[in-house]
């Protein structure tokens, strides 16, 4: 498995590189009314409106700083039977890891809201959480962001 590694305030996280479309700088976002705080807004991605969430805000309750190392990772997001695009704000997106699938541990998380962090891998003394994009948003937020 090939993982895209990035950092938030305190920990390392990774995304399956197969899900990643493009990594772009921070952009001007238009806010979405009634959306939770971690949904930072929407922007025009080559003619398509793409919602953006701040992973640091979702996981660690602190907004990602507005600096050059903060990036938007665009990932494929499956909503019902449609292919959508989701933007994830993260920091220091600088490394690709190639890891053996057998090294990935499953963590039992009772909290439904944290289900997207149930996979963990130990890599060179670093504990890396693998963010599962499909479990990232709850039903309400999904409908708010992707329903037509």
């Amino acid at each position, binding site marked *: 498995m090939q993982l895209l590694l990035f950092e938030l305030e305190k920990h390392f996280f990774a995304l399956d590189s197969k899900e990643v479309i493009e990594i*772009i*700088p*921070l*952009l*001007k976002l238009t806010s979405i009314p009634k959306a939770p705080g971690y949904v930072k807004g929407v*922007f*025009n*991605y*080559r*003619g398509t409106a793409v919602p953006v969430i701040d992973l640091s805000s979702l996981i660690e309750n602190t907004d990602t700083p*507005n*600096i*050059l*190392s903060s990036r938007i990772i665009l990932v494929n997001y499956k909503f019902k039977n449609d292919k959508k695009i989701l933007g994830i704000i993260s920091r*220091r997106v*600088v490394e690709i890891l190639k890891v053996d699938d057998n090294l990935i541990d499953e963590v039992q998380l009772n909290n439904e809201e944290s289900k997207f962090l149930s996979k963990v891998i130990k890599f060179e003394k670093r504990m890396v959480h693998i963010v599962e994009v499909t479990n990232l948003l709850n039903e309400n937020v999904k409908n708010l962001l992707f329903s037509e």
Partner: protein
Amino acid sequence: MKKIEKEIESKKNCWTSIGVWGDSSCKELEKFIHCRNCPVFSDAGLNLFEQEHPSGYIDEWTNVISKEKDISLVDEQTFLVFRLGDEWFGISSKFIFEIMELKTVHSLPQTKDIIIKGIVNVRGEIKIAISLHDLFTIEEQKSKKEKTKKIYKRMIAITKDKNIWVFPVDEIYGIFKLGNKTLSDPPSTAKNSSVNFIKGVYDAETFRIGYIDEQKLFATIIKRVYS
């Protein structure tokens, strides 16, 4: 994070003082061999991005990302520019196998053709070394620029249909994109025979580059080396 920052602060620009760009006295070099493998150097690089956006940066990118991707750029042809004597030439990048330091060419006995210089070791394999200088009738000579900056002669390995040939050049300039520029016709009068191998001239503003016709070049090499 703060620990790294402190470490970088304490070793500020250590790569230019005790590192490979300094006196190479750093003990860590035994482990990392080169500063670029050292975490202090890479963290200093990463820290360059730990600053606010320049003015207009976000607006510019928002505008770029909102537009359709220009896929014509993806197919853009590139070519390697090198110098023989005083003349600049370009050859399509897809025929480049490798650019190497000058290597010893072991001459072959009883080779009648002047363009065949001998054999050379390319990654453990024996390849034929040719001379584009002789093929184009250009003398190996130093250009005026060599007085002001250090120029390194190199060898270029070109490949076609799994065959590899190597030839020395007086300087490698770099990779150019052909883009929307069209090649102008080669000059009808020239001092040497390179004009026979050029399909057009690329105007690089400060100098002109003869774009090599690969079909003619490879056909000539095959004919003269193997017949």
